[in-house]
């Protein structure tokens, strides 16, 4: 067997085994999307309920005093940027897209007057990206990007709150921004940038509960006034971060499934092309052999006539 043919067959085998791996990863990711979606669905009752409560309490005229977490500061000296990426690669541009949006947001915050943009990183990919560039990675969490728990979100939220409460004059931050990949559907995931703190009551999304407007004015609070907000807003922030992590986890699997699907398709193409090459090489070899035999026979016949 000729060297060219052997080489082509060897490559076909190697591409075939790669294809098996990417195909398996595609199927695994597809089944994990479903699980991730179930986790999103399971977290919805709490998220909706706490959102309703926050909307009720922050409605105008309910709690008279302004709360530090809802009050924009006059000058923003430093901002925090929370990036949610994955721990593992092989998910196409999933983490890269978040990191790119993070770079743009960092630039925008600097333009708006933040002298420092403090990174808060979730996922090994973000940590690697920042460490490679020699930036601060002191606020980072990883190891749970595919299956975040509420406690993971709480750890992040507590660290963010601590820095927010300190304020930029004391080495903390005045604003907190979040970049994550929103899971809109199996086919669409979008990188989303939003401000977490200070909380703008107008940003609190509507849920589909039938809570009547005006009811909040009659509501009783235990404790009165700001005490409720002190307990409520940190938990609302945690719920928002938890929801973002769950969305990001589903998006990560969807991105991985898509990346692995195109890898599998590419492997198919490559196998087709290599098979054609191998066939051509085999045919060339046969032709070559026939030519040699014919040539040899003719030479023998010619030699016989001469005698």
């Amino acid at each position, binding site marked *: 067997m000729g060297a060219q043919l052997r080489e082509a067959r060897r490559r076909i085998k190697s591409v075939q085994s790669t294809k098996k791996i990417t195909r398996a990863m595609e199927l695994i990711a597809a089944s994990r999307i479903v699980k991730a979606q179930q*986790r999103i669905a399971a977290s919805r009752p709490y998220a909706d309920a*706490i959102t309703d409560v926050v909307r009720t309490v922050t409605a105008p005229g309910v709690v008279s005093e302004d709360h530090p977490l809802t009050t924009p500061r006059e000058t923003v000296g430093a901002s925090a940027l929370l990036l949610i990426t994955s721990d593992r690669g092989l998910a196409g541009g999933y983490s890269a897209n978040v990191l790119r949006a993070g770079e743009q947001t960092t630039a925008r915050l600097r333009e708006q007057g933040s002298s420092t943009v403090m990174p808060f990183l979730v996922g090994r990919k973000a940590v690697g990206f920042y460490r490679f560039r020699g930036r601060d990675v002191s606020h980072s969490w990883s190891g749970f990007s595919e299956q975040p728990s509420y406690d993971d979100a709480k750890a992040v939220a507590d660290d963010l709150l601590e820095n927010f409460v300190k304020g930029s004059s004391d080495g903390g931050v005045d604003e907190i921004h979040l970049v994550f990949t929103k899971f809109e559907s199996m086919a669409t995931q979008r990188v989303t940038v939003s401000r977490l703190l200070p909380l703008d009551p107008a940003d609190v999304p509507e849920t589909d509960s039938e809570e009547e407007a005006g009811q909040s004015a009659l509501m009783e609070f235990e404790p009165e006034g700001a005490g409720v907000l002190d*307990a409520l807003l940190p938990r609302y922030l945690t719920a928002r971060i938890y929801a973002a992590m769950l969305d990001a986890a589903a998006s990560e699997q969807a991105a991985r499934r898509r990346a692995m699907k195109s890898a599998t398709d590419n492997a198919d193409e490559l196998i087709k092309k290599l098979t054609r090459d191998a066939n051509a090489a085999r045919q060339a070899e046969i032709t070559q052999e026939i030519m040699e035999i014919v040539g040899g026979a003719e030479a023998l016949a010619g030699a016989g006539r001469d005698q």
Partner: protein
Amino acid sequence: MATMQVDLVAPDRMVWSGEAEFVRARTVDGEIGILPRHIPLLGVLVEAPVTIRRAGEGELVANVSGGFLSVSAEGVKILAETVEIEGETS
């Protein structure tokens, strides 16, 4: 006896949802009991057991690690960061 809709919710799951006759919980201001048609209320819970007297199913006692009690015309929602079912009697 009249009943009300009660939801006991943790961040990652709905723990219990159904009709109940009575809910007892402890807010920062003290113990509170909720019967159907209670006025709207938002309370901050402290770490303590919450008791739900379910309609026709006996009592459900759950330890909550603090959270909220929200009473509205729709019913009662108990939001807690961690919920541990302590006991059920039927």
